[in-house]
């Protein structure tokens, strides 16, 4: 069952200028729903750019991307954002928590513009924090979190809009092995929920983990290997 389909997708930065850079050079892929897929490859291989394209953060320079049969490519930003925030949850490499806000406020952020009553949203956010074992930190400022806590908060934030797809960019880059294994346990939980998980990583701990259904290797913006 093809959930997300990419057809000859290219992403070129600074098109037509001397510093033109082709980050994604013609990728065709189809991703199944409910699977854990890892994109591996050295830095600069285009895997992060591909995550951005799949997640609707950027539009491809050429090619088509469809989600559940609906084309995303030509949607205006407004509607693309609408699709993105209801379908995808993002966990960034640097976590990117907003400093000065509390843990709970950070988790509520993706849903802030949606017009959900505040009490309901806070309840939902707190439930995600509890499930990830950081519920007791809800009122704390994110500035004082440990690395492991910060990541759990970032994951809770990615889940607050109940997305079908969770996208994580180098999630274990700032974690030691113990915390990395804990992260994989969380991913297993997401998979058990029936969510599709897409991870960009060059950490063997991640792409050799048993729960990974498929590993796609990138080099120079192209698919080099695809193992299931």
């Amino acid at each position: 069952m093809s959930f997300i389909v990419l057809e000859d997708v290219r992403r070129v930065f600074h098109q037509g200028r001397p510093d033109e850079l082709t980050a994604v050079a013609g990728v065709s892929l189809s991703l199944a729903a409910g699977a854990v897929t890892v994109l591996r490859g050295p830095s600069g291989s285009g895997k992060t750019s591909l995550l951005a394209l799949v997640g609707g953060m950027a539009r491809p320079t050429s090619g088509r991307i469809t989600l559940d049969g609906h084309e995303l490519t030509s949607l205006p930003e407004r509607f693309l954002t609408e699709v993105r925030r209801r379908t995808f949850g993002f966990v960034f490499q640097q976590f990117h928590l907003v400093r000065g806000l509390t843990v709970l406020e950070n988790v509520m952020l993706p849903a802030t513009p949606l017009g959900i009553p505040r009490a309901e949203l806070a309840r939902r956010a707190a439930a995600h924090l509890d499930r990830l074992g950081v519920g007791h930190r809800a009122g704390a400022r994110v500035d004082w979190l440990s690395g492991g806590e910060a990541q759990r908060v970032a994951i809770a934030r990615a889940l607050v809009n109940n997305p079908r797809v969770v996208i994580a960019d180098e999630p274990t880059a700032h974690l030691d092995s113990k915390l990395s294994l804990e992260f994989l346990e969380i991913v297993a939980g997401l998979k058990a929920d029936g969510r599709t998980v897409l991870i960009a990583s060059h950490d063997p701990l991640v792409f050799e983990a048993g729960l990974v259904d498929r590993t796609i290797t990138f080099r120079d913006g192209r698919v080099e290997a695809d193992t299931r």
Partner: protein
Amino acid sequence: MTARAWLERQRALLDFTLASLGRRPGKNLALLLVYALVVFALASTLLFTAALRREAALVLRGAPDVVVQRLVAGRHDPIPAAEVARLASIRGVSAATGRRWGYYFDRGSRANLTVQVPPAWWGGDGEVVVGEGVARARRAAPGEDFPMLAASGHFIHLRVREVIPADSALVSSDLVLLSDGDFQRLFGDDPARFTDVALTVPNAREVPMVAEKVVKLIPQARAITRAELQRTYESVFDRRSGLVVALLATAVLAFAVVAWDKAAGLSAEERREIGVLKALGWETSDVLLVKLQEGAVVSLLAFAAGVLAAYAHVFLGSAWLFAAALKGWSTLSPDYRLTPDVSPLELTTLFFLSVVPYTVATVVPAWRAATADPDEVMRS
């Protein structure tokens, strides 16, 4: 989006906006201060001139309908007492009263006093009633001696009968009232001549016609109607406050440039934050709304603070900061209290002079900030 969801969205984003303003107090406080200062300066000017205008209107309400003066060689000259009866005979004039008044330069206090014989003098010869400002400058209390240098070169000694209280007394503050006889002794005035003549014209429609007849009757005379006086006051106040605002316009422009600069020069931290919000699924219009709310909150605070401070300055503090520049009445600045009043005209004018320039200056930078690429944070 339902109305309820729309409201929740505004509220949730406003919460975020307020928190975000609170997180960067330094940056916003400086801007707020400058903004409030600009509003304060403009509001003080507007409220002050509006108050002066009302005071003048109040004073004019008691002024005669028509004042007849005699001009000789273009100069104001006393009018012969015989003319009063002739003026009273003009159709439409119910009463004509000769008046005596003049100015007296008081060397001690270096102030110009207005000396007047009131229509019905309630004191006796040798007595004066003085305005509050005069009493203050000369430190004269009721019952005390009030010497004045007469035209003859000798001092005449008068006694203060009472002091006119300073409730709303821009004009009466420098006033000295005395008897007809004392006035003549003081200035060596000719008893057969009056300074001018006040006419009472009960029907306002007849005023222009009466004025025309006055000029026909006494060719050297000029007739000043109350309406003309009012227009003159209005126009003087208008021009003065317009001048001040025109001068302040440069300050407003400088402020707009500062506001633009502040809005355009986002810190790395703010830029990163907007990038994160976009990456998390905030739409351009969401970020734009936050930025505009930010501007609205800053404007509201600055506007309120500036107007309140100006209100206190003008109505409680008697506009001490620039009373001298705008009033230009007499060197003897009265210790008056203006009647507090704020009209929609002043508030709307103020809004156009402060909030509109701020908004125009910040809209494009706000939009630029809001259009950050959502995948920017992933690229870094």
